[in-house]
């Protein structure tokens, strides 16, 4: 399964580019509802070597449970230690400028790029 889609959001993995892209608004209710996205990220991580990109440039909103989900994934990748994580954000979406730097704090080697 390379894509999870619902009315408000879409999360998809493109194997050719090694990128997981997030679109829309993610305001799911807690860990349980985020589980399918966590599974997708884990699946991508286990099949990735060297580099994995998360593209958030079309993610308009993310609630704190979603921030929790992404942060936990980044901590997991820090512990694994052999994968370069790249996060692409957008300056046009205010929450990203405020919140994504916290991911880099959790994993200093994470590459944070803004368009």
């Amino acid at each position, binding site marked *: 399964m390379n894509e999870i889609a619902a009315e*408000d959001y879409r999360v998809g993995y493109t194997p050719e580019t090694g990128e997981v892209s997030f679109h829309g*608004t993610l*305001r799911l*209710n*807690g*860990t349980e509802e985020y589980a399918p996205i966590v599974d997708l990220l884990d699946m991508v991580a286990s099949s990735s070597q060297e580099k994995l990109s998360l593209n958030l440039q079309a993610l308009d*909103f993310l*609630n*704190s*449970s979603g*921030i*929790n989900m992404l*942060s*936990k994934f980044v*901590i997991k990748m820090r512990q694994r230690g052999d994968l370069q994580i790249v996060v692409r954000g957008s300056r046009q*979406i*205010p*929450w990203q400028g*405020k*919140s994504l730097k*916290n991911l880099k*704090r*959790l994993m200093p080697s994470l590459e944070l790029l803004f368009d």
Partner: protein
Amino acid sequence: MTEIFGDFEVGLPASREFLTIEFSPSSLPIQKLWKNNGLSADFMADYFATFFPTEEESDGREVAHQAEVKDAVSYIANELLENAMKYGEADPTFSVSLTLQLHKDRLVFLTRNSISTVDRSEFSAAIAHIVSTEDLGSLYEEALLDESGKSGLGFLTMIMNYGAVLGWQFEGTDKEGLSLVTTMVQVAV
């Protein structure tokens, strides 16, 4: 018994610009009502953004822009509603309310919901920790590792990402084992 944590302004003067949303958290299953949190938050965000200049209109002045206000309101209002819904479903006779007031120099969010005595002691311990910490960064990492879904991460992100000032007031009710909690979030604009 009334108890106050953090920066809670009891005698806050009324504002002429405000919106209030009130609902019963038990009127529908929480999975169905959940969507209304985002809808309500986005409506409040759009409504209050109108009172601020666009980036072009601000002409380089140091004032909050529409896009920033919209982003802050939609994030904070949604988090407050999510919290109120999680805790407030304990008793169907008390409604949940969210008021957003526009003051001269700040936005003030007020949510009010019921909370069971058990949750109250857990919740007040968590917020006492947030209010007294001198190391938000460590508390943030701790909250990320919490699995309970009641880690306070929403409050921590309001402080860290939006510079919000938080306060809480707990009051007793006539009902055994049930309190009311009002959360006040202030953001300078």
